[in-house]
Each structure stands twice: as C-alpha cells, then as structure tokens.
C-alpha cells in the first residue's frame, strides 16, 4: 500500500489517503522530524483511532489532513484530491478547543452554520440540538471564559458536529471529560457514525477508548513520528458493555498496549 512514486491515489476508494507524508519543524537550527514518511489509507465510513506516546505526531498528522499544515514531503488526499486547505467537509475538534472567546456557546456552535448560510431559525434549532446533546443547555448563553475545562471541550464537540461534516478529525475530544460524560459521548458518536456514514479519525491516549470505538487502531511511535502498528479490531457494532468485557476486547487492548509501550525504538515498521 505504500508507494514511493507519487502516482495519483492508488487506493481509489480510500476516503483519506496519506502517502509518504513527512513533516519537519525547525528546532534549534536543526530539522525536527515530526512525521517520517507516514502512509495510511482510511476507507469511506471507516472509524480509525490513533494512539501513541505524547509528542509522536498525532496532532501533526491530523493537521495535515485538515489542511492546516502542509507536509514537508508526500501527499495527503481526501476523496482522491490533494488537500488544498481546510474545508467544512472535514470537521475538526482541536486538542486545545479553539473556541471563539467573544461568542457565547450558542454562537460558537452556530458559527459554521452561519458560514454555510443557513437561515437563522434552522441554525438556532440545530445549535440547540447539539448543545443539548453535549449537556450545555444551561450554558447556551455563557461565554467560554465562564465554562469549565470539560464544558469548553463539549462546546467544541458540538460546534464540530453541527456542521455535519462527512469526515470527522478529532484530537483527544473526550480528554477533559469525566468517565460518565465520556461514555455517553462515545456512544452518541458511534451511534451517529453508524447511522450517518461518517469517516472518523479519532486521536486518543486511552487505549480502551481506542479499541472500543475503532474499526482499526493506528499505533504511532515517536522520534521520528511514524506509524508503528495497525491493529484491526474485528469486534461487532454496536459496541456494548458486553463487548467491552469480552476476552477479544481484552486481547486487542493488550495488543495495542503492547504496541504502544514496547516499541522497539526507531523500528521502521510501516504497516499502514
């Protein structure tokens, strides 16, 4: 699947195709390799989770797909076309939330809908729905500075969901949430995903979460940032509490855990 010649998208059916993407940042005069020839295809309607140690390049990879960072070399394709910048087809939830501090929760959620030109009534209704979904109804008119960390994160989730993108790029979206809220939102996400056919790339540092949600878990390694392992999760959907307690889940969980924490350093195992 990894080709070195830049021919147009070899996997024609891939919704997202990352081809030999490298990304370096200047650091103390040298080039720091944040991504080293990463290749990965994500099929339409696939749910891929990405795990890996802190600083291994997960966010960088997501930014490349979002069109916010340009790869130093290699190509990133969405729907067979080179990523030429961000667009509302790819919803993004940022690790640092990036709420507009001067807008209330409601207006933050409505932002994308306003850009898309939805009429006010419809906008309001949609926003209302997603605000309720993340449990912020009481704070719909609060400014971000009045929200707790977890509430900010939920607001960012509602904002991304509201524009109804076909691809969701989520960077540790449930990281600041307590376990119960997290489980609720996990279930909602899976439910929406399976009903509305979305393609999801979901970064997390919670191995359980990664296995529980995904069709495939991508394990990344650091220094240089690269794909170390890809674990296919054969578990059936819907993923119930039962699935979570199944031995197969435990096996996969251990497999991923192993991949993450017993990486032979700098092994060049591109299995994407």
């Amino acid at each position, binding site marked *: 699947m990894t080709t070195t010649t830049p021919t147009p998208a070899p996997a024609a059916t891939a919704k997202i195709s990352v081809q030999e993407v490298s990304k370096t940042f200047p650091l103390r005069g040298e080039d720091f390799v944040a991504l080293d020839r990463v290749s990965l295809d994500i099929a339409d309607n696939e749910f891929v989770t990405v795990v890996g140690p802190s600083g291994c390049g997960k966010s960088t990879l997501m930014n490349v797909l979002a069109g916010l960072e340009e790869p130093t070399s290699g190509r990133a394709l969405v729907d067979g076309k080179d990523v030429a910048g*961000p667009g509302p087809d790819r919803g993004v939830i940022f690790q640092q939330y990036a709420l*507009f*501090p001067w807008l209330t929760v409601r207006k933050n959620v409505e932002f994308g809908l306003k850009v898309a030109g939805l009429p006010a009534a419809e906008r309001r209704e949609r926003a209302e729905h997603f605000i309720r979904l993340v449990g912020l109804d009481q704070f719909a008119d609060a400014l971000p*500075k009045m929200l707790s960390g977890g509430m900010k994160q939920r607001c960012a989730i509602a904002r991304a969901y509201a524009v109804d993108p076909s691809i969701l790029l989520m960077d540790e979206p449930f990281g600041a949430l307590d376990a119960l809220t997290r489980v609720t939102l996990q279930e909602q996400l899976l439910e929406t995903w399976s009903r509305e056919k979305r393609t999801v790339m979901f970064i997390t540092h919670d191995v359980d979460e990664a296995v529980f949600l995904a069709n495939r878990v991508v394990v990344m390694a650091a220094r240089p940032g690269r794909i170390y392992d890809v674990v296919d999760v054969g578990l059936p959907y819907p993923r119930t509490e039962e699935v979570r307690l199944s031995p197969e889940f435990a096996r996969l969980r251990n497999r991923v855990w192993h991949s993450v924490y017993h990486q032979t350093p700098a092994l060049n195992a591109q299995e994407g």
Partner: protein
Amino acid sequence: MTASTPRLARNGPPPGAPAAAAAGPRSGRDTGAAGQPGPGRPTRRRPPARTLLLVLNACSIVAGVAIWWILSLNGFQFPTPPEVVEKAVQLGRDGLLRQDVLASLGRVLTGFLLGSAAAIPVGFLMGWYTVARGLFEPWIQFFRTIPPLALLPLVLVLMGIGELPKVFVIFLAAFLACVISTYQGVVSVDRTLINAARVLGAKDGTIFVRVVVPASTPFILVGMRVGLGSAWATLVAAELLAAQVGLGYRMQQAQLYYDLATIFVGIILIGVLGLVMDRLLLLAESRLTGWQERR
C-alpha cells in the same frame, strides 16, 4: 513598582485575581482589609472602583487647576482660571462658543470616523496580503512622520479651501494613527482561532469580519483612542485653511491679539471634548471586550 503595596487600589480588571479584585475597591474605601475577607462577607462589585476612579479623576483635575492658578499668580502671564471662565461665559453668551464647538466637532467627528473606518480594512489588507502591505506601508509610515502643517500646502493645492481639506487633514491624522494599530492587531490574532474558522468553512471575508475584527478589538480601540487624540491635535492645523468658525480658528485669531484667555478656553474645550469622546470609546471598549479572560 517593585513590591505589591497593599495600600494601592487596583483597577477593575485585576491581574492579581480575587484578592486584588477585592483589594481595589476595598482599600479604596479605606477598610484596608485586602486579602483578609471575613467569613460570610459578601463581595461587592464594580461600582466602588468606578466611584473611586471618578473621585481620583476629580482630585487630579482639581490639583491640575490649582497648579495652573498658582503658576498664573506667580508671574507667568497665564490668565487665571476665573478669567478663563469669564471669557468662556462671554464667548458663550455671544453664541460663538456653540458655533465653534459645533463646527469643530463636526470636522473632527467626520474625519475621525472616516479615518478609523478606513483604517480597519486597510489594516486587515496589510496584515494579510503581502501585496497590500508592500504597497501601502512605505506611504503610511512616510506620511505619519510628516507634520500636518507641512501637508497644508499640498492639501490646499489638491483640495482647495473648502471643508474637504480640513476634514481630510483630520481624517489623515486619525487614519494614520489607527492603521498601524489595526495592522498589528490583525497580525497578532491567534492562529488557532483562524484555523478554527477555516475548518468551519469560513473564507477570508468572513474570517475578517467574524474573527479578525473581534479578536483584534483591543488593538483597534487603541488605534481609535490614539487616532482621536491626533484628530483633535490636528484641528488647529486644519482650521488654518480658511476656516471662518471653529475652535482652532478661534484660537489662531486670539493669537493674533494675544488674547490668552480665549486660547485657554479653546485648549480646555478641545481637551474636554476629547476626553468625553475618549470616555465614550472606553465605554464601547468595555462592551466589546468583555469576553476577554482578563475580566
């Protein structure tokens, strides 16, 4: 400046967070219990700080007037405050004052509002597009260093002696002061917010209106405050150009006769009008930047 003085009251947006937030108004009312809130004691909000501010403003103004009075009684040929007040009353009775104030206010407001309004999009264009920046910047910098007096001949040649050149000189002063600040505001906007807008589908125009402008409001307001000062300070130069009425004109005329009382009336009126407009801007600011973390 190097140590926190508990006696010093703090402003509304207190950097020292709660203890300080409370310290401000409280030590202002001389309870001096900063940071030692008794149990169950309800926190009182803004008004005291605002009152304190007004009281201090008043003190400061009284002190200033006193210094002036002392100076004028000590051999400096200033008119004394009562003389100036008398002159103001006299001019007011003649209806001149009203006429002058209206004429000058009209010019300053027009020039200032147009200047600020132009500065915001130009600042944005300069912040975002190399082409715009490359083309505008040398001239903006260039004209900023030229005293308005030196521009008068040029303006006269191009625009004659009507209202246009007067408003233009003021416009230019406000615009040039504001555009630098807006530009800096535009380039200082946090990139993550722009990225957030982009991934929600926003294009440059929308980002400008909905992200860049609100995010750089503090800068734009600095620009407007500075521009407002420049606009008033340029008034006298503007009214050198064949004005028949206006505070600047009245002051120049008075200068021909060494009528210092009238000059003082003019200076004080200009100062007061400038101060009032500045307060209005600050009011707008506290409305517009209430979302900032600092409050």
